[in-house]
């Protein structure tokens, strides 16, 4: 249903669609949560869609990525079927990970999505390993790893970036700086405003990009991927963005400064791209609205199918622990 944009080929219509899918998906998850159809916890990414869509759009079909608990958008941008994603969040056998993983562990090896990590920072070393694997096997694959601003304070961030630089690993570190780690504002836990300055500790390029501008994200990621593929080593890419919903399901977001949310909504990545598409005559606002409705319909039908899907059989409970 969602087509992943061609690698390296900016396809603004596809980006727009992909962002709409993510937004509709996340809005729906929020509702399902209220209705008790999705349980446990979820971490939504409304407002941040330009990062997964722009960055993942720059990847090749064989490239690898690791994501986090806030990874629905990345999985969808990479082409994961919303039905399999919903089913996973509902714990169904038809889920992406057969319901074993849930919201925080969207994984799809068929798309190079080699892991979603619920432990902050844990995905960075794994992506580095995949990049080194590609390098050692001589495949020219690149690995992207997504993480938040808060993750840059845990040891794994430091260890992974240092090793990646020493080994000139073909990996791109994509930091989504949404200004908060859970309920803590960036500056209460981090003494710098730009995460990108940390790249200097590892002698790698550190680049700040407007994370609400899908085109800019795409371009900078494409450049970083090209460097990695050419054997020139890793890049730290900091995408400045903002999440509209709370950290997780129970969070009303009271810690926000007054007006902050509205200011960011005024820079909404979907609206911005939509306006550009309309202005440049690529897609009229009527077409956009029609597409939005189509997408909404697709999401609703995906939910319906996921909701009807079977639970895992209890007999299978012990499977997938050891290799067959």
């Amino acid at each position, binding site marked *: 249903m969602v087509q992943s944009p061609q690698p390296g080929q900016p396809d603004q219509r596809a980006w727009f669609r992909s962002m709409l899918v993510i937004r509709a998906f996340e809005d729906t998850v929020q509702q399902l949560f209220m209705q008790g159809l999705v349980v446990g916890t979820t971490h939504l990414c409304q407002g941040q869609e330009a990062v997964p869509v722009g960055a993942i759009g720059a990847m090749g079909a064989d490239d690898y990525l690791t994501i986090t608990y806030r990874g629905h958008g990345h999985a969808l941008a990479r082409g994961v079927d919303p039905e399999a994603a919903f089913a996973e969040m509902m*714990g169904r056998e038809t889920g992406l990970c057969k319901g074993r993983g849930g919201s925080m562990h969207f994984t799809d090896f068929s798309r190079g999505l080699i892991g979603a990590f*619920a*432990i902050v920072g844990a995905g960075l070393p794994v992506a580095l390993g995949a990049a080194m694997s590609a390098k050692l096997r001589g495949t020219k694959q690149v690995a992207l790893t997504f993480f938040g601003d808060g993750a840059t304070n845990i040891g794994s961030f430091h260890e992974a970036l240092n090793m990646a630089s020493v080994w000139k690993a073909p990996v791109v570190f994509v930091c989504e700086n949404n200004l908060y780690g859970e309920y803590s504002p960036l500056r209460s*836990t981090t003494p710098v405003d730009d995460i990108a300055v940390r790249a200097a500790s590892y002698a790698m390029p550190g680049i700040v990009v407007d994370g609400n501008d899908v085109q800019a994200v795409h371009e900078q990621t494409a450049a970083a991927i090209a460097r990695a593929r050419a054997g020139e080593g890793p890049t730290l890419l900091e995408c400045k963005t903002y999440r509209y919903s709370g950290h997780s399901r129970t969070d009303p977001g009271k810690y926000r400064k007054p007006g902050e949310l509205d200011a960011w909504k005024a820079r909404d990545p979907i609206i911005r791209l939509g306006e550009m598409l309309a202005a440049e005559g690529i897609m009229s606002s009527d077409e956009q609205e029609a597409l939005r409705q189509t997408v909404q319909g697709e999401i609703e039908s995906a939910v319906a199918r996921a909701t009807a899907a079977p639970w895992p059989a209890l007999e299978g409970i012990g499977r997938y622990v050891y290799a067959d």
Partner: protein
Amino acid sequence: MSTPTEVAATEITYRDAIRTALAAELRADPAVVFLGEDIGGAGGSFKTSEGLLEEFGPDRVIDTPISENGFVGAALGMAVTGMRPVVEIMFVDFLPSAGDAMINEIPKFRFMSGGQATVPLVIRAIGGATGHFGTQHSATGESWFQQMPGLLVATAGSPASAYGLLRAAIRCNDPVLLIEHKGMFARKELVDLDAPLPEVGKAAILRSGGDVTIVATLLMVERALQAADMLAAEGIEAEVIDLRWVAPLDIATIRESILRTDRLVIAEEQVHAGGWGATLISLLAQEGLPENSIPRAVSMPNYPIAFSPPLEDAAVPSADRIAEAARAVVRE
């Protein structure tokens, strides 16, 4: 201290029990400080510290970056220089991120220095399944540190236990890891806030019975009590013990109980291998179990915890399974 006639018992939740205990100790001793992720302004991910920042200020209630090994190590530095830090680990599953501090530094510190320092430090870690938090957010971790002499490990099996154990842990001069169960935050019971603090290392007999001893921790305590109700209806009287301390293990209380009941059931929300249940059975077996008494453990199955609700529900021991095990050992 209240006299027996004016009991200060109040009905509070497990969550409030923790918050109240923290507040009481912060109030009682200026050396107590509390640190962890999002505990201040946000009042904790599970709201166990709401209002503490407001009352005690940012010097006593300290938000940390996401740096588990770093801030647990920092707490050790505080503990050996005159403070009594309490650290919150938001999910038990993040304790391995502080692995070195938890395993090599804190338990061994006093010993390595030849007794030069004490380490009055509490690590509160929130664990447990049933919340559908998935594979990396559902461990109880209650037995992960059994092989680290020097570290005490307590488990809060009820609001009263949470309140008493947390206060006792903060007053203890040795490092204590206190496990709380996230499935129990809304549980309520009458708690006497002025009761004497529970003794370190002492299990609690919650229900007496002569036919079988059930030893449990955390959420399994509640389920063991439910099982005891079912069993009572069938004429089987179960003695239910909340183990409370995984280290040190209160083998004396358990031994004394099974000398009376001749029968032992373990109810544990953990894999049996390497857990306190196995340790307990092994220690008792080495002393000689009562004749014809075959102990039985009701444990988590030998695979990771699945997110999918029916799979998770099937994996966590239920009151039914505990009762069934008790019937089996009584029948044998």
